[in-house]
């Protein structure tokens, strides 16, 4: 590979300054984040009484949001680890996007769970007095672990890129936080020994992250499945959650691919072929998740036990029907219908399908969490009228919206300071491609 081609790849993939669209995007995200922080300060001062949660619905959109964040974070293990181990070379330009989404989502998952606490200053008691028998403790441990694994999996492949970012010719290309690159990557000299250790570490991480990722979402599903309630009393919940998590993660990657491709003009690196292949992955995952959904709803509906009946009829034709069917169609059926056609796997339709998957998946988490809380086995009586319903309060919407904006803001900041497509790996692959 000649130096010119090499330089072109470097210049194409270097982090870029925000344009007008980028600045507007960041301002919008900041506004949402600030609104969320203000609402949270209000919640801290007044307590959870300002939310619409009560005796029955004690898990509202905060927990739905938490499950959503945990789910979307699994994409790191899917793209980076599973596809890497399967030696799927086309996924290389997508690995960093997937890892950035994973780190951002798992960070917000950890934050939003604290938001759901009435007395967050007592959080440390969970560590001091936690029972090892409780799935909540397992979730705390596994979230922390997954955060570090994801961070390492983002960091290690970045090492060669830091060296490129610190080169004088890269420096001239635009303002970037060089102190950050120096601190984290100035020691990378691209020596064979360093490359060998790094490759081995990435391989170990790729293997490690898969059970940890499966554990994080299985344990999250057990928070529900170990509770004896209509809609949650299932032995299938772990697999059901993981398949849904891979789907939403893959959908998010489709969205991010289109956004970064469009914003950074990466058409030569994130090609239509990538959308085609990623679209096929999403179809497969949507079909898998649809299969688990049919299992989760059809089997109890066939038996229609009394307690399950109220819950299921509420979902199918009752007060949650609109949200339920929107989630099913938006997250699975419509994306399949779009992506099944070759034209549907072009960048724009694939982007639309990805957006539908992500939005539908958020509502799917809401449908998993809230309707069940309104259908306990013991009858609900002698409670205030508002306890029989749940519609999030303004503060809950603002905090949930702020957390989603927070995740997007972290992704945006990462994209501003880090190469969104691995530079060194792209050069290496181009060289190998030329040799072949």
């Amino acid at each position, binding site marked *: 590979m000649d130096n010119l081609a090499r330089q072109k790849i470097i210049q194409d993939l270097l982090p870029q300054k925000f344009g007008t669209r980028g600045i507007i995007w960041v301002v919008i995200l900041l506004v949402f984040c600030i609104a969320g922080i203000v609402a949270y300060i209000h919640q801290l001062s007044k307590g959870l009484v300002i939310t619409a949660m009560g005796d029955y619905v004690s898990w509202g959109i905060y927990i739905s949001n938490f499950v959503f964040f945990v789910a979307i974070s699994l994409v790191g293990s899917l793209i980076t680890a599973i596809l890497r181990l399967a030696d799927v070379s086309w996924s290389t330009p997508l690995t960093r996007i997937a890892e950035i989404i994973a780190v951002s989502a798992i960070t917000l998952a950890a934050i939003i769970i604290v938001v759901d606490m009435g007395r967050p200053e007592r959080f440390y008691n969970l560590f001091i*007095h*936690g*029972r*090892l*028998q409780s799935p909540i403790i*397992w979730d705390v*441990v596994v979230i922390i*672990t997954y955060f*570090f*694994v994801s961070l*390492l999996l983002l*960091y*290690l492949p970045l*090492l060669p890129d830091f060296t490129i970012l610190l080169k004088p010719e890269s420096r001239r290309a635009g303002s970037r936080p060089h102190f950050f690159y120096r601190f984290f990557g*100035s*020691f*990378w*000299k691209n*020596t064979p*020994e*360093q490359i060998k*250790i*790094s490759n*081995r*570490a990435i391989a*170990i*991480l790729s293997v*490690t992250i898969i*059970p*940890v990722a499966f*554990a994080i979402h299985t344990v999250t599903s057990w928070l529900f499945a170990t509770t004896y309630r209509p809609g949650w009393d299932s032995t299938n919940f772990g697999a059901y959650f993981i398949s849904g998590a891979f789907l939403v993660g893959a959908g998010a990657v489709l969205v991010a691919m289109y956004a970064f491709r469009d914003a950074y003009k990466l058409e030569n690196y994130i090609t239509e072929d990538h959308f085609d292949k990623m679209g096929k992955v999403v179809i497969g995952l949507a079909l898998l998740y649809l299969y688990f959904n049919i299992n989760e709803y059809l089997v109890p509906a066939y038996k229609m036990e009394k307690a399950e009946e109220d819950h299921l009829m509420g979902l199918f034709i009752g007060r949650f029907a609109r949200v339920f069917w929107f989630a099913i169609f938006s997250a699975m059926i419509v994306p399949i219908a779009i992506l099944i056609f070759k034209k549907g796997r072009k960048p724009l339709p694939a982007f639309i399908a990805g957006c539908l998957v992500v939005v539908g998946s958020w509502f799917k988490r809401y449908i998993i969490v809230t309707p069940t809380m309104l259908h306990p086995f013991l009858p609900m009586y002698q409670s205030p009228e508002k306890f029989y319903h749940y519609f999030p309060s303004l503060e809950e919407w603002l905090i949930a919206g702020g957390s989603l904006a927070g995740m997007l803001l972290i992704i945006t900041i990462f994209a501003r300071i880090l190469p969104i497509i691995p530079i060194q790996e792209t050069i290496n692959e181009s060289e190998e491609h030329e040799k072949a």
Partner: protein
Amino acid sequence: MKKPSHITWLTIMMSGMFTLGLLAQEAKSDLNLGLGYVNDNDRLQYLKASAKTKINGKFQPVAGINLSFYLGTESPSNLLGKARTNSRGEAVAFIPAAAGEEWKKSEKHEFLAVSEPSDSFGTTKSSIEITRAKIKLDTAEGRKLVAALLELREGKWIPVKGVDLTFSVKRMGRNLGVGDSPTYTTDSTGTANADFKLAELPGDSSGNITLVARVEDNDTYGTVSSEKKVPWGSDTQYYDSDFDKRSLYARRGLTPLWLGFMAYSIGLAVWGVLIYLFFQIRKIKKLGTV
């Protein structure tokens, strides 16, 4: 017509204001204060007061009333104790050992309960006079209970005739009557007896049950009771409780060993890998800085 003078106007105004003032003042409700004396098994003696008031035509308990209990007249030297009524409107004051000397001086005693005035109620007093009495409870052949009620008269314990008492067995909740009749009346010897008709009543691990003879809320003696433990019940073998055993639902520190082993093994394995990788990064750093 003659116009009213200034003094007339002033009088009318002041009368009006006075009437308004009276109306504005919230009338205090009547507090109904009951007082009882209890001699529990001739060991524990206490006074039990109950505070009630009429709300919507029904007597309702009044919580939060501060009461002072006296032996005899209302004076600081006679104060037995203070208590506050609970949600059931009840307050209890135990007769302290310090009142022992005064107690022994007489066969009859008067107790007084005085409530502190509050926003809703004025001061209310209630008194009770009791004669010192005790019950001697014994058993006779053929599973019979024999109880003698004795009162203190001129320094001697004299049997009392014609007083109703109950015979029962102590249970977890309320006591369980031993025979067909709810009450038994003492005869000329001050004695009442009852047949124990309960079969296979669960007792403790040795089959012991506790019999109780009790005079309830008597006008002269208050409430007097006596207890006796007898081996008339069936042995009860309690199953071992799982409370202090390792289980999934046990408290912290009683994690099942298999779970602890699995959880710590997985945690150590994963974090072992992460720590190893941190050292690998250090190694990469060293190689680059040498």
